[in-house]
């Protein structure tokens, strides 16, 4: 049996003695889209940063395609694409220069890949403008292109719809579905319960540093999921 695309076992993390994650177990298979819901401060971003190997857990392990991340970090990083709250792209470089730079770091040999992603993000015409002159949504799209540049098998997205207009959100939605169809594992933290219900093959609700609820085989409809979310977290989705 193939190992899960991404697996976290008993992951815990604290900041300044305050526990943020308390023993998270999460296994994500290829072709799955797991949406992480939770109120502010629930630990969603911390979990995603740990899964992206940007933050070390105080205890517990992360493995990517069966390989323990702490023993083969670079091998694991080649499989991961992460987009956090910020784009990780340089404002004084153009979209094309940013993507070309990261393509070098990831040793992407396909010369057409940058143009392909610029076309997909709808930035082909603005590709040679410094990002500082681009809108928040455009920068977010370049950040997403950066995360997908090296064709990762696991994509980790922290509130990826933030700053996107409806058309760009729909395009992202379609892209995430396409990634899933290609066998990519996606883990995304989102705030929007209806979008979570539409996008996910599995929903987990993070509360108090623990996975407080995991959806059954079929993700419930938006209204039902919102009800579960309220009941689990005591807050509105």
């Amino acid at each position, binding site marked *: 049996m193939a190992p899960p695309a991404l697996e976290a076992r008993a992951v815990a993390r604290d900041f300044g003695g305050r526990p943020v994650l308390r023993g998270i177990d999460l296994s994500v298979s290829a072709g799955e889209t797991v949406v992480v819901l939770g109120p502010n401060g629930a630990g969603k971003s911390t979990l995603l*940063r740990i899964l*992206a*190997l*940007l*933050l*070390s857990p105080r205890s517990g392990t992360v493995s990517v395609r069966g390989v323990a991340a702490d023993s083969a*970090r*670079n*091998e694991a*990083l*080649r499989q*991961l694409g*992460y987009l*956090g*709250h*910020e*784009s*990780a*792209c*340089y*404002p*004084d*470089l153009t979209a094309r*220069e940013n993507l070309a*730079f*990261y393509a*070098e*770091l*990831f*040793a992407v040999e396909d010369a057409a890949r940058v143009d392909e992603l610029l076309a997909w993000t709808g930035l082909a015409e603005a590709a040679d403008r*410094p990002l500082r002159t681009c809108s928040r949504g455009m*920068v977010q799209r370049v950040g997403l292109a*950066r995360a997908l540049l090296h064709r990762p098998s696991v994509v980790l997205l922290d509130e990826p719809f933030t700053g996107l207009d409806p058309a760009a959100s729909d395009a992202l939605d379609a892209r995430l579905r396409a990634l899933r169809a290609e066998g990519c594992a996606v883990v995304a933290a989102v705030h929007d319960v209806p979008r979570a219900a539409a996008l996910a093959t599995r929903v987990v609700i993070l509360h108090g540093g623990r996975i407080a609820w995991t959806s059954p085989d079929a993700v419930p409809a938006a209204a039902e999921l919102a009800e579960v979310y309220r009941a689990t977290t005591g807050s509105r989705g």
Partner: protein
Amino acid sequence: MRATLALVRKDLRIEWRTRETATTLAVLGVLLVTVLAFAHDPEPEAAPLLVPAVLWSAMVFTGLLGVERGFLLEREQDCLAGLRGAPIDPTALYAAKLIVNLLLLSATHAVVVPLTGLFLHVELWSVLPSLVLVLLLGTLGFAAVATLFAFVTVRLRTRQVMLPLLVLPLLIPLLIAAVKATEAVLGSGLAGARDALGVLVSFDVIFVTAGVLLFPAMVKD
């Protein structure tokens, strides 16, 4: 090596486009040299004694600013997360920042050194190769230490206080040797600077090695 070159090219491209750091360092260097030279207004025979102090004071102030700015670049838009999420050896990041800092500080020297000679009426042209060697060795040691600590302090709100506090005590042997070597080069030539050059080379070897070994642990979280 490929990652180091990509990182160096990226930093230089940003600097070429914005000219922020180079301009700031050059202006600060000119100001410092002007103030230090005119504040002392030395007699012609005493002027050469002032050159090492002016050069290395300007180097410390401009250097601390320049090195810190190099890492601020990585804070904006959380670019550091992008670099840490790339499958590269963290040493490549240290090496790239060290090279870029060395280039920027060398460019600052290119402005500060002739101006120092001009303001203090000291003929530096005849000792230029030896002076360049001393400046290069001193700047390498300075950049090796400052690059390592700037990465730690850039994430702090009190970084402008913490970087000099951490770095300057470590730099004291380097600065003493650099001043002595410059003094000797201006007086008796390179032969008279042998001991001080030995200290500079040793300092460079120790702190470049320490940077290469310690940086990956600092990048980890």
